[in-house]
Structure formats: structure tokens, C-alpha cells
């Protein structure tokens, strides 16, 4: 059982990505990030469909690709032993489900009867015993994806890459397949990368997660936060992590008194429970919009200056969410609050109305931006 070590940079026109991480055997590393930030390119570089510009990718001491000091080496795709599955099952239409699964083992030299027996075992693992003779066209989308999963795992790959494997499935079948994937990946015990947009995928499958963000401040796109799923979702330090965690992320600096100073925000100072950070340090603060207390401005004139985590703003938009109404303001783009529907009705909230927002200290979670991970 061996580690996956990735340390690469790749460039496509104006797009640049640099990433360095490793995944232990049996570990499922979630890869989160917005569309176009390079998640799929990262998997492509490991699978062998995208060339890298520098760095290397290794499984244990087996080098898949390396590009440094003028030396370049790339193992062809068919010798990489990297299993890849995305949302499209792409079963071979001319082969039965069983032959699809047996394809990999047979390609690697297994005898036909043995490969068939193995395929039958895998059909059973993915809950499709008896459907071995069906063609892709005769299977539902969920069943096709099960076959595709079995087809990848039956090759006993050294690394498994999953690129939003459930994105094309209807909600009803996702739960079952997710459970199946978890069980089967555990059996295999190899490093796994899981690209997803879905915090539910991260919660149920991933052990840890890296968050990719687009290029900024002269840095290429790359990993901006790494931690356990719980850490990242509880205390997101990047905009995307905050998005999937359903939290609002603010950036500021720690003051000498231990409060957080926010430049250019209607609320200039935030009182937090504790930062543990020295004065002058940069800090991220995140909160759940549902923890914001929204009240009617009692006396608009009196309250116009913000005090003690409270400020008065003008409602810019109201949007129905699963928990109630999400409110955005004209004065502060990145701010959001969520109130139950009944409260929104009582407050007569609508575009243009004034409201008083309070950020209680216990709702705020503070963290330090991570050192640059490339």
C-alpha cells in the first residue's frame, strides 16, 4: 500500500495551476473548488490525459510523470494503474455489463474465465447480480454508474480518481451509490481523490479536503485550504469553502484589543469570543447567516452608527432558501443574513427596507489564513 504524491504545475494559455499534496492509502481526499479552477485538470494530469509543465506525480516509488530540469518522463495511460470515474458512465455499448467489468482484468492478461468470474463477483458487490448480460442501453443511469464503478475497481487500481461521480444521478439513487462507493473504496484501501461540489459527498466519503481557488495576488490557481472535512466546513478560510459550508466569510486584521477590524465594511469592528491570534495578524471570520439577528431599526437616526457588532443596512434582495429568507444588503456585498419566514413577515422585509443586523460574538469563528501551500 503506497502513497500518492502530487507536486505539479500546469499551464494552459492564461490558466495556471500549481498543487502539491499527498494522499495516504485508504484515505479519501476531497477536492473542492469552483468550476474552471482546475479540479478536473488535476485529475487529468494524474490519469495521464493532460501533460504537466513541471513537477512530478508518484505512487509510492513508481513515477507516473515527471518534468524537471529538462528531464521529462510520462508513463502511458494504460500502464498507470489509475482508476478514473466521472459522472458519465461511458460503458462500452457493444459489451455486456459483465464484459465491461471484465475488460480491465482481461486487458491486464487475466484469463477469460477468471475475468468473468471476477466480473460476476463485482456485479454482486455493486448490487447487480443477475444483470451481467444486460447492455448499457438496457440499464438505468444509476445501474450504469454502478457497472462503471465496478469496472474501475475490478482493475485493482493503485489510485482511484472520482470526478463528481454522482452529479448525473437523480437524488433518489445518489444515497445508495454513495454508500456503495464508501464500502468498496474501503475494501480496496488505496489513495482516493474525490472532486465534488457537494458538501454531502465530502461529509459521507472524504476524510480530508483541499479547497482550490482561482489565481489571485500573482499566485496561480491552487490549494488554499487543507484540513479534515469538519475543520474546513466549520472554519472555512476561502470563499468557496465558505460557500459549501453555507457560511459567510470576512477578512480583516486582529486589533490590539483582540477584536477584528474590517476595512471598508459598514461594520468596522467585530467582537469575537477569542482569536488566539496576535494583534496585527490577518484573520478570517466566518458566520452562519442564520445566526445573524435581524430586528427592525427602532430609531434610525440613533442607530446610524454601528456599535457592538450591530449595524443598520438597506435590504438589497430577498431570496427564499430551505430555512427561510436570505437577505442581502446594498451597503455590504459579501454580507448575508437568514431569517425564518415568519420573522421576515413580522419585520416587513422587502427591497429598500431598513433593518438592523447583529452579529453575536458566539456566532463568529475566527481563523488565520493558511501559509501559502503553492
Amino acid at each position, binding site marked *: 500500500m503506497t502513497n500518492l504524491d502530487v507536486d505539479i504545475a500546469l499551464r494552459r494559455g492564461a490558466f495556471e495551476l500549481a498543487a502539491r499534496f499527498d494522499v495516504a492509502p485508504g484515505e479519501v481526499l476531497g477536492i473542492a473548488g469552483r468550476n474552471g479552477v482546475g479540479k478536473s485538470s488535476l485529475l487529468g494530469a494524474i490519469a*495521464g490525459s493532460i501533460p504537466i509543465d513541471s513537477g512530478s506525480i508518484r505512487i509510492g516509488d513508481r513515477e507516473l510523470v515527471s518534468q524537471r530540469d529538462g528531464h521529462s518522463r510520462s508513463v502511458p495511460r*494504460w500502464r*498507470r*494503474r489509475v482508476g478514473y470515474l466521472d459522472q458519465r458512465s*461511458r460503458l*462500452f455499448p*457493444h459489451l455486456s455489463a459483465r464484459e465491461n467489468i471484465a*475488460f480491465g482484468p482481461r*486487458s491486464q492478461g487475466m484469463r477469460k474465465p477468471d475475468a468473468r468470474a471476477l466480473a460476476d463477483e463485482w456485479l454482486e458487490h455493486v448490487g447487480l447480480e443477475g444483470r451481467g448480460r444486460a447492455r448499457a442501453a438496457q440499464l438505468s443511469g444509476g445501474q450504469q454508474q454502478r457497472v462503471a464503478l465496478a469496472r474501475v475497481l475490478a*482493475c485493482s487500481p493503485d489510485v482511484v480518481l472520482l470526478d463528481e461521480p454522482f452529479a448525473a444521478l437523480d437524488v433518489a439513487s445518489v444515497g445508495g451509490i454513495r454508500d456503495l462507493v464508501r464500502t468498496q473504496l474501503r475494501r480496496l484501501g488505496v489513495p482516493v481523490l474525490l472532486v465534488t461540489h457537494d458538501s454531502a459527498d465530502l461529509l459521507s466519503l472524504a476524510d480530508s479536503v483541499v479547497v482550490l481557488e482561482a489565481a489571485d495576488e500573482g499566485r496561480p490557481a491552487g490549494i488554499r485550504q487543507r484540513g479534515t472535512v469538519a475543520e474546513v466546513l466549520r472554519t472555512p478560510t476561502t470563499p468557496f469553502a465558505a460557500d459549501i459550508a453555507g457560511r459567510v466569510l470576512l477578512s480583516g486584521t486582529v486589533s490590539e484589543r483582540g477584536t477584528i477590524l474590517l476595512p471598508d465594511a459598514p461594520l468596522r469592528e467585530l467582537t469575537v469570543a477569542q482569536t488566539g491570534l496576535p494583534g496585527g495578524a490577518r484573520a478570517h471570520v466566518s458566520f452562519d447567516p442564520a445566526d445573524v439577528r435581524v430586528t427592525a431599526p427602532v430609531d434610525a437616526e440613533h442607530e446610524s452608527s454601528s456599535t457592538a457588532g450591530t449595524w443598520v443596512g438597506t435590504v438589497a434582495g430577498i431570496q427564499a432558501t430551505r430555512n427561510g429568507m436570505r437577505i442581502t444588503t446594498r451597503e455590504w456585498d459579501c454580507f448575508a443574513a437568514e431569517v425564518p419566514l415568519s420573522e421576515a413577515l413580522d419585520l416587513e422585509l422587502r427591497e429598500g427596507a431598513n433593518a438592523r443586523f447583529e452579529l453575536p460574538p458566539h456566532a463568529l469563528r475566527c481563523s488565520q489564513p493558511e501559509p501559502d501551500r503553492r
Partner: protein
Amino acid sequence: MRGAAAERAPAFVWLPASIGILLLLAPLLAVLVRIEWTQVPAILTSETALQALRLSLVTAALATVLCVILGVPIAIVLTRMRGFAAVLLRGAVMLPLILPPLVGGMALLLLFGRGGMLGELGLQLQFTTAAVVLAQAFVAMPFLVISVEGALRSADRELEAVAAGLGARPATVLRRVTLPLIAPALYSGIILSLTRALGEFGATAMFAGNAPGTTQTIPLAIYTAFNGAGVGRDTALALALLLICIAFATLLLLHGRPATRELLAKGAQ
């Protein structure tokens, strides 16, 4: 597609279409009308006719095999080539479609004939059955290449990538994924090449000659009978009828295929 078939073509298309169909079928009808039906069995069982039929079938089959063995690789090379070289190569492959077969036969003669470039080296094929096969393959090859190349272009390259990801080396990908995926097009290509080879006359006449038993295929037998002192017109017509029947049978094989496949699929369930 099948569901939309109920929609009829508009009237202004039907008129030229009818004239076109007439133009294609009327000459064939003339053959059927002028044929001496009572003599047909005797003519078709004559030694000359049977010999020509046997030779035609064997050479056309061999030529088709040659087309597959050489044409499929050509198609694969063509799909993976880019730029001007690809345009040139495609043009070269399509040349036999445009050239009169007579010219093709002449060219083959200059290469393999007595005093030809390869003929000098001992590879003299002129007036042999091998020359017939070569001439037929020469004119039939483009049909197979066009058909297979088109399918390769529209084939799902991602499935090949999937196969490679599952550990299949390039040769395995070709054998177990690419070729099965283009099987329908390969089948049409084979049928088209076969019919073209069966009907081939010009290149064969020029390169292989017209020797009964070795190089006289049905088209050449028809020519001989029709041209020879005017006594063999009935023979020519009967042989033509035979060729028409064979051509129709092969074309039915081509177009009957989807129906056949459906039937097989139903049987398998």
C-alpha cells in the same frame, strides 16, 4: 428516424425523383424485356458461364479481403493525420474513384506487366488471376476506406481513452473497442467493395486480360458474348441478369442489416 419516415417528401421533389428512378431502372427493364427467358437456364449452366461465375465470386471475395486488410489501416492512419499531408493522402486514396478504371488497369500494367517496373524484378502478374484480384482491389478500396474513415471520425474517442485507463494497450483498444464500434460501417464498406469488385471491368480487361477460366469474370464474359460476332447476345443478357441479381442480393444484405440485428437482439433476450 424511423418514426419520422411517415412524413412524405413534398410533391416538387417527387417529380424529378420519378424521372431519376426511371432513368436508372428503364435500361434494366429493357434487359428483362429483351431477354430470351427459355434459354436462360441452359446459358447459365454452360461451362463458360459457371467458370466466369466461380472466378467472379472468388476474385471479388479475395479483393474484398485485401481491401479490409489494407483499407482499415489506411482509414486509421487518415483519421489520425493532420494538415496538408492528410489532404494529399486522402486524395491519393480517392483517386481510383475518379479515374476511369481503364487508366487504373494501364497503371497496374506498367507496374506489374511484362517490362513493368516490378515486372522486371520477377513480380509479373499480367494475365493471371492474381491480376484480376489486384485490379478489383484497386477500384474497390476507396469505398471501404471512405466508409470506415467516416465511422472512425464520428466514433467516441472517449471510449478509447476509457479503455486505456482500464489498462488496455493500444493494440487491445483497437481490437476490442475501436473495431467493434465501427463494425456497422466496416460491414457496409465490405458490401460496397464486394459489389464494386464484382462489377469491375475496365481495369481487369486492361491488366488481367480476358482468358476463360483464369481472368474472364462475368463482366468480361458479358463483353465477349455481346461483342463476339453478335451470336452471343442472349448469353450476354442472361449473364447480365445474373450479375443484376447478385448485386441486388448484396445490396439487400446491406440494407437488411439493421432489421437483422434487431431480430438477433430480440432473440438474445
